[in-house]
């Protein structure tokens, strides 16, 4: 399994564990109010699952499994795949912090961070699509 696929898949498992822990915190918070920031953590919790775990697992498995780019360069333009990995995770972490923070704290910095998170995740999706597109081909 190539290095980038391992990074995607292992990171996705970390997000799965993180999402489950946030889920526990949210469940406890519903019974006995813990910290106000958890009132605004629902969307981040969902996205830790579907972007952090599922989407990232798909990216990793696709990178590993899809037909090779060429014999000389089996994984093609790998820097695009690495770029998508960095942007996806930077965007998701930024989102997981900034989104609940904007709910409890007023500050332009958090809002700028949220826009940064949106841009990073969007760019990651676009970059991975551009990267993997030539590897989606018939025999």
């Amino acid at each position, binding site marked *: 399994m190539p290095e980038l696929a391992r990074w995607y898949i292992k990171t996705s498992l970390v997000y799965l564990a993180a999402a489950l822990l946030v889920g526990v915190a949210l469940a406890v918070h519903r019974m006995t109010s813990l910290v106000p920031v958890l009132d605004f953590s629902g969307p981040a919790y969902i996205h830790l699952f*579907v972007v952090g775990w599922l989407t990232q697992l798909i990216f990793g498995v696709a990178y590993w*499994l899809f037909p090779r780019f060429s014999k000389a360069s089996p994984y093609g333009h790998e820097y695009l795949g690495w770029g998508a990995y960095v942007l996806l995770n930077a965007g998701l972490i930024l989102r997981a912090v900034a989104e609940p923070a904007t709910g409890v704290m007023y500050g332009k910095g*958090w809002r700028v961070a949220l826009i940064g998170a*949106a841009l990073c995740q969007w760019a990651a999706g*676009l970059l991975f*699509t551009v990267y993997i597109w030539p590897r989606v*081909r*018939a025999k």
Partner: protein
Amino acid sequence: MPRLSCWFIRFALIHLVLGFTLGALMLAQKAGALGTAVWAFRVAHQEFLLAGFMLQLVFGVGFWILPRPVHPQHGWPMVAALILINAGVWLAAAGGTVPAWGGVAILGRLSETGAVGLFASTIWPRVRPFQHARG
């Protein structure tokens, strides 16, 4: 990779980009960068990513990677599944975006269900023990 799998996966990737674009717009709205009108696309965002991207990717990869059929299969059910899943995603997204189009959303869900039925019926006989696949 079979040609049909390529089509499923390419459409899945297009929906990934569209879904991420709508998601980014909604997240930017939370920062006050855009108007609240973008929230009309919340159902489209979910539909594009869950059915358009993930489900369709599963169709494409499953059709490619599961053991070959023992007996020759017709190609039309998977072609119909490709048409139905994409039509269904867009109809369900449109129905969820325009409040008065509830009927369109129902049509979309039915279309998606039909696609799943066709995919499952194609894949079912291919899910079998390894020794049968070899034999």
